[in-house]
């Protein structure tokens, strides 16, 4: 697949297309898990990957990601899930608590701080995954079909939440979906990918 794309700061870019067209692969390239065979990826002017080599590792790109399977750590509480990355960054405990409390309140899941992921509903877990990405205050947020496993009502509700949060926090978003309605509601720009 030949591809060329610029993502502007603050925009909400949707990658839309059928299964197998390469949307997730593209997102994983942005995250730094996969390198492009040829060409380069630049993040804020710095070459992050080029011609099959990853030059800036995922941990150094300062991007947040919400995975399709959410990837919440079952052995940590909700608070622990959010704190893990902040601790690794060396933030003092007071600052960590402040950020986590703020983010949990924003996502309306503050009462679940001491719970474990399996104790929460699908929609609540989805919010936790989003909170975990946002608490790191990333340059941009990558979301890989985060609502695909939810029922229609919950899907609609959380779509609205994502739009609300983006308007409040003004983060750059790259969102992968195969749902036309999701793409139209969430994206300020839609990139349509077709199967090669």
């Amino acid at each position, binding site marked *: 697949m030949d591809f060329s794309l610029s993502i502007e700061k603050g925009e909400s870019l949707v990658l839309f297309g059928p299964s197998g067209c390469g949307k997730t692969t593209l997102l994983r390239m942005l*995250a*730094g*898990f996969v390198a492009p065979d040829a060409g380069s990826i630049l993040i804020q002017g710095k070459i992050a990957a080029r011609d099959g080599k990853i030059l800036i*590792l*995922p*941990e*150094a*790109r*300062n*991007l*947040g*990601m919400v*995975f*399709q*399977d*959410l*990837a919440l*750590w*079952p*052995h940590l509480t909700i608070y622990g899930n959010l704190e*893990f*990355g902040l601790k*690794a*960054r060396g933030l003092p405990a007071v600052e960590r608590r402040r950020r986590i409390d703020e983010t949990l309140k924003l996502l309306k899941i503050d009462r679940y701080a001491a719970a474990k992921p399996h104790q929460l509903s699908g929609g609540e877990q989805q919010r936790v995954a989003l909170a*975990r*990405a946002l608490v*790191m205050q990333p340059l941009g947020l*990558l979301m890989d079909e985060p609502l695909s496993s939810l029922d229609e009502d919950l899907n609609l509700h959380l779509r609205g939440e994502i739009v609300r949060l983006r308007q409040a926090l003004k983060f750059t978003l790259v969102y992968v979906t195969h749902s036309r309605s999701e793409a139209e509601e969430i994206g300020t720009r839609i990139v349509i990918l077709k199967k090669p």
Partner: protein
Amino acid sequence: MSLRRSIFWLTAALLIGLGLSPLAEIFAQSLFVNGRLSLDLFSNMLSSSQTRHLLMTSLSLAGLVTFLSVMIGLPLSILLGKSDMPGRSWLITVFTLPLLIPPYVQAVAWFHLLGRQGLVARWVAGGDWKAGSNFLFSVGGCGWVMFTCYMPILMLLTIAFIRSVNPRLEEAALLTATWPRILSRITLPLILPGIILGALLIFLLDLGEFGVPLFLRINVFPVETFTQFSAYYDFGAAAAAAAPLALIALMAMFAEGLFLERKTVHVRIGPGDGPGIRIGLGKLGKWLAALMWFFAFAIVIMPLLALLSESAVIQAWRTAMTQGWDSVLRSMFFAAIAASLLSVLGFLTGYLIHVQGLGSWRLLDTLTILLFALPSTVIGIGMIGVWNHPFTNFVYASPIILILGYVIQYWVLPSRITLAALSRIPASMEEAAQVMGVSWIRRMAGIIVPLVRRDIIVAWLVCYIFCLRDTGISMLVYPPGTDPLTVRIFTLMANGEPAMIAALCVSLIILSLIPLGIIQWIGMRKGWA
């Protein structure tokens, strides 16, 4: 170079260095005579009728055991892993017991059961029964004992593969066919890699088995290797006797790699992935269960009862503890140290293979299997050649060499257990931490290890049991004054009281069961499955 990559390289270097050096030493010693390249040792060996006889006996014995394991073990595995027969999990536990016990201890147990003055002789033949003894001290008897020791490997692997079959495939077939047809056309082809791997492992382990043939006086290559070294101290001849076994193991691993298309095979120890579809046996289930219990009683429980019965004399235990307590403590200590080292190295190797962290990950995977399949006498002889120098005497003359031998032989166990555990964890678990900026070490400590901690404990336990029961490496490399219990039992067998020997054998079994019991208890308290 990142820390992750450095650790990968270090792990690979340790595996290749420690693992291949004994093999290289074996071939070097057998190919160089008086400093010159020579095939004399090989040509003497190959032209000798004794070598041909040894080869025939070794291959026949290994072939017999493999044949029995497949013919009996496969239907047993299907019954235990696929049907709704009552008491399945208990039966699996009982049939697995022999894996906890050193093979030659089981030979001792069978001797106390079928020997001329064994339990059967006392019950049935008025105290003197030649037929049982004649059978036991034959290739057939030796094969039977080794079958009871190694069949559980095929059983466990086959059951693991049965549990991994997608139930939807069988459900789809059930719409149009009956179970015999589904088993033969759907299930068996899907689990064939597990059966072949199990059969191959059993063949190679039998080829390298040393304790049982030595006890039952069947001369095979590993026994010849041991005799050449320990009786004649002819290192070159011992190496030459070990080389064919090493070659056969190499060829077998190459064939396994080709046939199984170089897929990694995951074995999960513990609950299956799901109930799957069970074959309903109806009323036949109870009769089959009774038959299986009878079979389990005959091949597992009776020999152990004979051993227990022989050891049921208080004086025997007193003498056993007087003569063996230091070896008991040493065995536990060495096994625990080796198991701990293996858990770390095996975890790192399993992780490396799982993420394909180095280009040589396939080679490393194959190497661990090869080292497990290599006869312990080959590894032992090779290690002596590698470490028996003045500047490495601190290793050679200390228990370090014993522990190194265990690490080399059993590396595959924690590696494969880790691999199976990691394959159940979505990659996104680690990626989510990575994208948050968490370093590799913190991801390992904070995410990966906690998620697989139960499997690491299982790996430790499996390694502990295998190290505890090891005979071949222990007998060849143990420094004087540091003999583990398996060696002490063998040494005392020559002129020790049978009751005392039986007591020592039972204590070895108890040592294996103690950590198993502790972990079961902890698991029950924590609600582990």
